[in-house]
Structure formats: structure tokens, C-alpha cells
């Protein structure tokens, strides 16, 4: 198991390098630069700035400098927000984003798995139909519209929850954003879980379990859930990355102080360092998540374990 994990980590390194390279050059293909403001800067100032950030060097040299610093754990300075480097900006914004995304992830996964199971066990009865409806809403309504509807209903009309903004440590402020994020995720998971659970309930080994008189609860808990979780688990890695990226938009809508704020402004201002830094961070998280998912998968499915 440990060897397997190690092999996976090693194999992720070239993937990471390729991804960084692609990001670096694609970003530079976009027109404009960090210092193209509304008011043009005097040429000498501009030249100084460009020299300061190595932007006057050939692109390949810039790339090598970037990689060299990256290997030392330095994501470089922000070119737009004076006096901050990228790591600082990330450490200010990212914990918040991670909290929101993780809450949505945990809540959505638990709800999705349980709802999918209930629907599978009650296939084509009312709980199943209710689920289909709720899932459809989650998948069909885009998050900005869902956010607006919830803000209107619970924030403005009922006044139960704040419609937006942030007060440090306030959980009510997180309820709506987390709901908007979690809903589609829970929807997808419950669909997956329902399908795989129905499949598992029809297998010979579940029939064997029933023939042993174990009782419905034990049949489900011990014999059906674990194999039914396999497709759900393989979805969790990509699922979490959807949540992390989705969080960027949702934070903007609700005016939350996550990394989304910096990322969106940085992208608009061509703040190369911040955009690249955030992208690289996300990439590492996604690679790590996929690794975790694969390990969980191996734990669930003994056939994978010894490969």
C-alpha cells in the first residue's frame, strides 16, 4: 500500500511539470499585460517595472526563472497588488475558500450517499421520485441563478439568513453559499450512488447475503454499501475540484473574502504571478485528492489493493 502510494506520488511529478508549463505559456498568450491600465504609464516607468519583474527577458528565460523559484517554494510577487507576494495572498484567501469548499464537500457527500441509498432501496416509489426532482433542480439551475433565488427567498423575503457579506466566524453567513455549492455536488453523487446501489442490490452476492437471513440492515450496511461506493469514490476527486473552482464564483456572488476575490481581479489585470500561483495550488490539491481517492478505492476494493 505504501509502495503504491509512493509510486503514485512520483508519477504525479511529470504531470505537474507539464501542467505548470502549459499554464505559464497559455497565460502569456492572452493579450495585454499587468501594467496596461486605463491611464498609460510613462515609458520609462513601464520599462523599469518590466525590468523589475523580468518581463523584458525572453519568454523562455522568464519561464526558467519561474520554475527555478517555484522549486524553491517561491511563487513570486504580485505584479498588481503592491507589497504582497503571491504566497501571502494565497495564505490570506485560501483558508477561507478551503473551509467553504470542504464544508460543501462533506455535507454534499454525506447527503448524496444517503439520499442515493434511500432512492435505490425505494426504487420507483415516492422517495425515489422526490430525489429525482431535487437532483434535477440542482443540476439544471446554474449556480449564479440558484444563488440569486436563495438570496431572494431566504435573505430578503423570509429574512432568515444574511443574503451576502461576511462577518468573521459567522456560520449563518456561510449557509447559503455552502448550499449553492453543495447542491449540484450532492445531486451528482446521489445519482451515482442510486445507480450503483441498484446494481449492487441485484448482484448474486447480495442474494447470497439475503439467503443467509442477515436482515435488511446488515445486508445493506455490510454487503451493499462498500461495493456501491466505488463509483462514488472515483467521482470525489473531480468533484472536489469542481467545488474548489465553483467556490471562486460563489465567493464573488456572496461577497466572501476567499481566494476568489484575488483570483478574479488578478485574471482581469493579467497579474501573472497570482493567476499562476493559484492555478498551481489548485493543481496540487487536485493531484493530491486523486491520490487520496485512489487509496480509498484500493481500500474499498481488495482486487486493486495488490496491484
Amino acid at each position: 500500500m505504501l509502495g503504491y502510494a509512493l509510486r503514485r506520488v512520483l508519477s504525479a511529478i511529470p504531470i505537474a511539470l507539464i501542467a505548470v508549463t502549459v499554464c505559464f505559456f497559455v497565460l502569456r498568450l492572452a493579450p495585454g499585460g499587468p501594467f496596461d491600465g486605463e491611464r498609460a504609464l510613462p515609458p520609462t516607468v513601464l520599462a523599469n517595472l518590466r525590468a523589475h519583474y523580468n518581463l523584458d527577458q525572453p519568454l523562455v528565460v522568464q519561464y526558467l526563472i519561474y520554475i527555478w523559484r517555484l522549486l524553491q517554494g517561491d511563487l513570486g510577487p504580485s505584479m498588481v497588488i503592491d507589497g504582497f507576494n503571491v504566497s501571502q495572498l494565497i495564505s490570506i484567501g485560501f483558508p477561507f475558500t478551503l473551509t467553504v469548499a470542504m464544508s460543501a464537500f462533506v455535507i454534499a457527500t454525506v447527503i448524496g450517499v444517503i439520499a442515493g441509498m434511500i432512492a435505490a432501496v425505494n426504487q420507483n416509489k415516492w422517495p425515489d421520485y422526490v430525489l429525482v426532482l431535487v437532483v434535477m433542480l440542482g443540476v439544471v439551475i446554474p449556480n449564479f441563478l440558484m444563488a440569486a433565488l436563495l438570496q431572494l427567498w431566504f435573505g430578503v423575503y423570509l429574512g432568515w439568513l444574511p443574503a451576502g457579506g461576511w462577518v468573521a466566524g459567522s456560520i449563518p453567513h456561510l449557509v447559503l453559499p455552502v448550499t449553492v455549492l453543495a447542491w449540484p455536488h450532492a445531486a451528482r453523487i446521489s445519482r451515482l450512488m442510486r445507480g450503483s446501489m441498484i446494481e449492487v442490490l441485484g448482484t448474486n452476492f447480495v442474494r447470497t447475503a439475503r439467503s443467509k437471513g442477515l436482515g435488511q440492515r446488515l445486508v445493506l450496511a455490510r454487503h451493499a454499501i462498500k461495493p456501491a461506493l466505488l463509483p462514488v469514490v472515483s467521482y470525489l476527486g473531480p468533484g472536489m475540484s469542481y467545488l474548489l473552482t465553483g467556490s471562486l464564483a460563489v465567493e464573488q456572488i456572496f461577497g466572501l473574502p476567499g481566494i476568489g476575490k484575488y483570483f478574479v481581479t488578478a485574471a482581469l489585470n493579467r497579474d501573472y504571478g497570482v493567476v499562476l500561483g493559484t492555478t498551481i495550488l489548485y493543481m496540487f490539491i487536485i493531484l493530491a485528492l486523486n491520490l487520496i481517492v485512489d487509496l480509498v478505492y484500493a481500500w474499498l476494493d481488495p482486487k486493486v489493493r495488490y496491484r
Partner: protein
Amino acid sequence: MSEVLKVEDMSVTFDLHDSEVHAVREMNFTLAEGETLAVVGESGSGKSQAFLSIMGLLAKNGRATGRAVMGDVDLIGMAPKQLDIYRGKDIAMIFQDPMTSLNPTLRVKTQLAEVLVTHRNFDKQAAIKTSIEMLERVGIPEPVKRANAYPHELSGGMRQRVMIAMSLLCQPKILIADEPTTALDVTVQAQMLDLFKKLTEDFGTALVLITHDLGVVAGIADRMMVMYGGRAVETGKTDDLFYDPRHPYTLGLLHSTPHIAKRTARLDPIQGLPPSLEHLPQGCSFNPRCAFAFDRCHAERPPLTEAGEGRQKACFYEGAMKYGEVA
């Protein structure tokens, strides 16, 4: 000998979108304590569904009517919760495909021990210990190692032994084995049948052996029941049916089996195809394939009636049947 199972007028029906299929119709038979009953018949004749219904394991669109009385309880129509008191304890079942019948995500010992924990209130350690003893008893070498293995680490024959061990943990009164050797290679088949014979004798368990293979029946069964088109068409002692079949279908079956048709140089499969359950012929279901059918067979369905000592048949024809006259 007292009877452990009495089945009366049992039928199994499946609902399809706009019609229904009668997979089993009005079955009547008894199973005596400790005996081995072979159930034979072509594919689709209702063998599996008949016994799955007794175990309460029919597919969702299936329902059973009639009675299957074990001791003083009727298993047909019993709520699953109630059934769970008896399933795995007094009546157990082994399935055709050992490769898929064990849970791939659980260790062998877990799947065995849970039976004892559920039905005998064993604590986990004692249950595992007893399970390992049972694995040894069904001829599994290195039972401790195998107990800790996952099913995919075992061969098909080994898995079927595990299934046998699992089914016998509570020393059930009845064991239903649905084509337990079909998926195994021939050498393993013979060992497996010896094992069945020995263990069911040791435990006094009555064995229902569902099979296509009359060779298997000859070696192990006390009695046999021949099924055709969802009905039992002939029952009786194995020897009686083998040496003196009274139903043309039984005769046909015997002559389409290699070892038994020694007298002839070639095999003679029964002509025609098994009937579609949705469009059974008028009268006797077998009449389109029967060389002895006469007017009455096309008009009326023969009931299962006494046909000599300890045997029954569902056939109007009373004359002598010689092989070769079967069309």
C-alpha cells in the same frame, strides 16, 4: 421418516410490462428428513424459481402463491423479516455461480462468521473459530489462510467449498443447491458431489439438488423430480425413474444424457424446443414433442397422479414406452 418440507399448490408468477409469466405452476411435493431430492429439467423449466420462491429470493416482479411448510411455518408469503429467522439457519441455499456469489469486498471469514453471529449469537471470535473448522471440514487446505483471503484469491472450486461451508454452519434441516457444480470443471465436480453426500449425511440435512446433469443425479439422489414447463411431470425414486421412466419426457431426458444411454451408440436429443412459458400448448405442455401423444393429450392437461409405489406422473399414456419410439 418425517418430512421437513411440504410444498402445496405452489406457483410463481412474474409480472411483465403488459403480461405475466407463470414460471412455476401448482407444484406439490414433500422432502423427507435427510433425503436427497434431485430436481431436473431443461433450462427455463422453473427449477430455480421454484426454490428461490421458497427462500423468499424472487426478483421484485415475482410473486409466489401456495404453501411451503417447514416444521410449523409456511415460508411462502412470509415477510422478509420473519423469513430471516429461518433463512441461513434452518434452510440454506447454494447458487450456481461461485465466482459471483461471494462478496468481493469482504474476507471469507467475515462472510462465514456473520451467519453464526446472526443466528447462533456467537461472539465474533468464536464464530471465526467455528468457521475455520468448517472450512477444514469441507476440505479446504490451510483454512486459516483461506479464511483471511478475499474471494478473488480463491479458485472457483475453492469458492464453492466456501459456499458449502457457509450454508452448513448452522446445520440446516434443508439445503438447496442450485446447479452447484455446473460452473466447475469435471474433476472438481465429482469431489464436490462426494462432499455434499458426506456432509448432508453427517448433519442429517435434506438436500435439494437442482441440476441438468442426470449423471449427477444417479450418483447421489434418493428421489428425483422432473420438471417441464413450470410443472413437475414425474417424481419417484431415482432408480425407478432411471430404469422404468413412465413419462415420455423423462425417457427423452435419459436418452439425451451420455452415460445413461449406454445402450445406444449415439445421443438422441429430445426433438423440438422447450415451450415458451407465455404460450404453453393446449393440454399437456409436452404434447408437441411427444411421440406417444394422443387426442386426450391435446385437449386436457394431465394432473400429477399416483403411478405406482412412491411415484407420480403427469401423463395419460399408459402403454409401454420403448426408447426409439420417441420421435
